[in-house]
């Protein structure tokens, strides 16, 4: 696993002093005792905030009330920056990461997959299939591509992307359609 030098606790001198003052500590604090989420003047006072979790429908999964979308994340040019963003979210209890086969020609899933290295088992990975009426085999090929890009052997949730037209339901439920792929997977 590639170590990310910025993914750990962000401790600035200003943040350290503020943290120490808050804790009523004036002596030297051993470095291994520094809180993991030290606030700085430029950041909101998140402290050790952990996003609450709720049951996700009937899935049996518990998701954080705030989840991270995969499209905008992948618009960030630098993978290291993306890793930092995912680390920050995960450190505050965000455990659900949404994506779609279609996002940025696959870059959405690729960037997230790389950023989730070492965290895969502790998060809910969601992706969406974009057959839009094409056949079951197209959906299955998209799924295989999603898994490769996301560097995982399974999705926690696989859903149908962009159900917006009046005839989408009939296309989805059509024989040999995408719903059969979802059932098969």
């Amino acid at each position: 696993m590639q170590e990310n030098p910025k993914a750990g606790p962000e401790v600035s001198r200003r943040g350290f002093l503020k943290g120490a003052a808050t804790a009523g500590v004036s002596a030297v604090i051993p470095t291994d005792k520094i809180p993991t989420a030290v606030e700085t003047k430029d950041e909101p006072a998140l402290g050790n905030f952990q996003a609450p979790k709720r049951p996700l429908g009937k899935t049996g999964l518990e998701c954080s009330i705030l989840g991270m979308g995969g499209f905008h994340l992948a618009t960030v040019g630098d993978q290291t920056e993306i890793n930092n963003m995912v680390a920050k979210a995960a450190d505050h209890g965000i455990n659900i990461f949404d994506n779609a086969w279609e996002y940025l020609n696959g870059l959405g899933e690729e960037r997230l997959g790389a950023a989730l290295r070492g965290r895969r088992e502790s998060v809910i990975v969601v992706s969406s299939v974009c057959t839009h009426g094409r056949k079951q085999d197209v959906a299955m090929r998209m799924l295989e591509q999603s898994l490769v890009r996301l560097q995982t052997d399974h999705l926690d949730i696989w859903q149908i992307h962009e159900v917006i037209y009046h005839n989408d339901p009939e296309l989805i439920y059509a024989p040999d359609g995408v719903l059969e792929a979802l059932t098969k997977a």
Partner: protein
Amino acid sequence: MACTISGAEEPRIIEQNLEIAQNFVPMTAAEMQALRDRCRQYAKDGRFELYKTSMKFDNPEARLVHDFPLDTTQVEVKDMIKEADNTGHAWPRV
């Protein structure tokens, strides 16, 4: 509702979202109903959701896979093709 998914194109947005989550106080059932009642007249006919069906926000590929007509002699369709930068080729040749 279990979860709000939000995109973030810079770290500041994540911090902002986390701060909102931190200060989040769920509405009561009565408050939720009041909000539904207030929005109903504006939301019921989709007038603010043109992106879902309007040709202005459509693209040729989506129309073709949904068996919707794509008359390339129409001015609107020509504009859409130009806007979408998409000729309607089937997947994966999008």
